[in-house]
């Protein structure tokens, strides 16, 4: 699984960084996104879902002391597209 860490990045950069990574993946592949900027989680969920990607996620627990840390697993579906 591909991974990208957007910890420390503020909007709108997380969405743009994730978009760049997703553009290199094929349907069926997954991207694990880790971050710590609360609005970014909601924005990533929104933009990925609207573009046809499947998004699942949880609060990052293991090893993280930041309550706002998150992890999202984004799956490229056959319908996903970045336009």
């Amino acid at each position, binding site marked *: 699984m591909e991974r990208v860490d957007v910890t420390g990045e*503020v*909007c*709108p*950069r997380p*969405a*743009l960084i994730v*978009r*760049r990574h997703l553009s290199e993946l094929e349907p069926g592949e997954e991207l694990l996104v880790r971050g710590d*900027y609360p*609005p970014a989680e*909601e*924005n*990533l*969920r*929104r*933009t*990925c879902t*609207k573009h046809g990607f499947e998004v699942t996620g949880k609060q990052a627990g293991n090893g993280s002391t930041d309550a706002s840390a998150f992890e999202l697993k984004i799956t490229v579906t056959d319908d996903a597209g970045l336009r």
Partner: protein
Amino acid sequence: MSDHRSGPAGPRLTEYAELHGCSCKVGQGNLDELLSRAGLDGDQNDLLFGVGEDAGARQLRQDLALVQTVDFFTPIVDDPYDFGRVAACNAASDAFATGATDDLSCLVVLGLPRELRDHAPAILRGMADLLDGVGGVVAGGHTTLNPWPFAGGAVTATAHPEHLLTARTARPGDRLYLTKPLGTQPAMGALRVGDGEFGETVREATDRPIEDIGEEALAWMTTPNRDAAVVAREHATAATDVTGFGLLGEATVLAGNAGVGVEIDRLPIVDGTLALSRLFGYGLADGESAETSGGLLVAVPGDGTADFEGELSGAGVFYRAVGRVTDGSGAALVEPKIERVRK
């Protein structure tokens, strides 16, 4: 951004903040919990209205009410003079949302990191100029060193008590109006990344230069809601201003405060911001994108809309009918028509 680029060169103001403009506002759920835990969620019998509204109001005489509010936030633009204008416009807006426009004065609240102290004069001048334009004054203030910048102020204004508006008096059947287009958050976001590694992606996403979109968003953020308020208090049943919760969030607050439902069927947006919002995941098409120094959301009875619209037009105030108040609950978008607006 403006002809007043007078701040020193160097670090960009927005680089010092993780959240920008009204998007740094604490969420409604967190705020409700805070007020509840502090015991501030009960009735306030000494006031005309207070916690939960855009401002607090106290009746001083039979014919005079004092309205008080405080609002400050992190930089949404890099130019310090423009930041000051937006901050003052936004702080005064909470008073205007209640219909209070007279005797306006502002106590400035300003915090800056040590390395940005030289920006203070331009920020203050921007605030003073904006307030001067609405008949207000800077009456003093408090400045402090702080790890990230913020500016705004405590604003007082007066009005006849019968002129005051709140969000809790909207009635089923009222039409809802918005007095500025939406889209400040994606417009300002695009400027923050327009020159960097994602510049090409951002510029290709929209059919307008992002500088034009940003210029227009700034013009709206520095358009005072005073003229809209003067008309609204003659015709409206309720009003609030649209800020960090976005249009749908503010409509939800209005619906909750008034015990009514709200349906939004039109979204006027600054042309070019819809594609940027889609790129950034900001939720503008869902009414969820945070606004900074946004317009008034005004509820007007059906038989008063013609006069209301006529007077807004006469005063040169932008407006769109964006929905209606129902006897339901909560706020929702109902197949909204999206209109691209150019100033």
